[in-house]
């Protein structure tokens, strides 16, 4: 039996991928022990015993890798962990920094290098696009709001103002852009980016790179229902040879190792643009397991040192539709997490809830 630690247990209307990853691991092998590493007492995944056998609270990424290492040392004294799959952009640099230490402690990883992580950042995406032969919408890096007054000389409205990590707003005027600039700056810090708007149909590819320029597996998806935040609430796996070819070009140009999400958009003239590369699984990654290409399980096996054959088949037409349910949480689970920061081996309390 293997034990895999998974982060990102937040599962609100803009969910982190952790619950989907854990569910996919349990689907592949129900005997897999999944350890949840949660940031908040009320992360919904904490109270899902069907998918998380143990839960440990961990410090927020802003506290840095030394604090994370200290907490992981305590956790590793309590449970064996064979591999860890981090699922949030913000925590990846700390896990990448701790990779050597994790390996010494017997914890396998399948992560991008720091260089690869930086290469796909929004700041460097245009360079990556050029290197990989992938068109990226024109982007201007803004370091001060005064640059917005001359922005129209480089990009025409409407345009998108984006944070370097998260956040994006379509702006139709200078006033819109100023408001969005300050909003994004306050939430996500500098620099702020301005990008040409491409109108069309989005295609997202959940993929795993082998770290040597190859693609271990990939499933393209089209969103069929969006939330008011523009997040996919329903989607369908599609056959999209061009999206897969673009994903292969990204892998080849970056030698990407580990999971990622390639965000593409096809404009009305049929040209497909690279919008973003997210350096971790998307929240919809459980659908890859349902479509016959269980990419979280593939990444977990790679992290545990297995030799992985590329898994390129999947079933187009596999759909997902999210659901919000009021999950019943046990007071003793809440108490254990609140007082000790951990919820260890609660399998004995699990009594047949539906997976």
């Amino acid at each position, binding site marked *: 039996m293997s034990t895999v630690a998974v982060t990102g247990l937040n599962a609100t209307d803009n969910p982190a991928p952790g619950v989907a990853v854990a569910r996919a691991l349990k689907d592949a092998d129900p005997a897999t022990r999944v350890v949840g590493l949660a940031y908040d007492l009320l992360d919904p995944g904490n109270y899902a015993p069907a998918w998380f056998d143990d839960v440990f609270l961990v410090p927020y990424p802003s506290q840095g890798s030394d604090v994370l290492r200290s907490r992981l040392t305590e956790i590793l004294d309590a449970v064996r962990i064979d591999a860890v799959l981090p699922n949030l952009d913000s925590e990846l640099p700390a896990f990448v920094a701790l990779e050597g230490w994790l390996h010494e402690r017997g914890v396998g990883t399948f992560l991008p290098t720091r260089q690869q992580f930086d290469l796909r950042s929004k700041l460097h995406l245009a360079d990556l696009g050029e290197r990989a032969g992938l068109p990226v919408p024109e982007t201007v890096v803004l370091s001060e709001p005064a640059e917005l007054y001359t922005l129209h000389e480089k990009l025409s409205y409407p345009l998108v103002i984006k944070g370097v990590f998260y956040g994006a707003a379509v702006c139709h005027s200078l006033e819109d852009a100023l408001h969005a600039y300050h909003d994004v700056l306050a939430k996500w810090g500098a620099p702020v980016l301005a990008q040409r708007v491409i109108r069309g149909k989005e295609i997202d590819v959940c993929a795993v790179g082998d770290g040597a320029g190859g693609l271990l597996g990939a499933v393209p*998806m089209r969103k069929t229902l969006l939330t008011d935040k523009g997040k996919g609430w329903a989607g*369908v796996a599609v*056959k999209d040879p061009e999206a897969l070819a673009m994903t292969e070009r990204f892998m080849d140009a970056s030698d990407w190792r580990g999971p990622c999400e390639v965000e593409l958009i096809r404009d009305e003239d049929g040209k497909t643009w690279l919008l973003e590369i997210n350096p971790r699984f998307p929240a919809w990654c459980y659908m890859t397991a349902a479509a016959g290409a269980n990419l979280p399980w593939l990444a977990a096996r790679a992290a545990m040192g297995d030799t992985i054959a590329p898994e390129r088949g999947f079933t187009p037409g596999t759909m997902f539709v999210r659901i919000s349910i009021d999950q019943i949480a046990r007071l003793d689970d809440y108490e254990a997490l609140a007082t000790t920061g951990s919820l260890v081996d609660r399998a004995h309390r699990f009594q047949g809830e539906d997976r």
Partner: protein
Amino acid sequence: MNLGTRLGDLAISDSGFVFDPYTGASFTVNATGLHLLRALKDGVIDRAGLLAGLDEAFDVDGADAGRDVDDFLGQLRRYELLPRDFELGASEVTP
């Protein structure tokens, strides 16, 4: 003329539910639409062949049936399920 992979790869159920695996789009067709889609997939891409099939299955013929076929092909072109320059031929060709 080749029909292209879009129409050839459509998943078509007996109920008339049609799924395009390239776009994720789905739509429904009535019995005559279903008959025409299947005929096109089977390689019947000449007007006489399509009309003869409709007549045999639904006992319809004449100018109305011809217009309906043209309308239906127009819709398929609009949804890019057929190449924009697709025209019915005079003889039967395998797609």
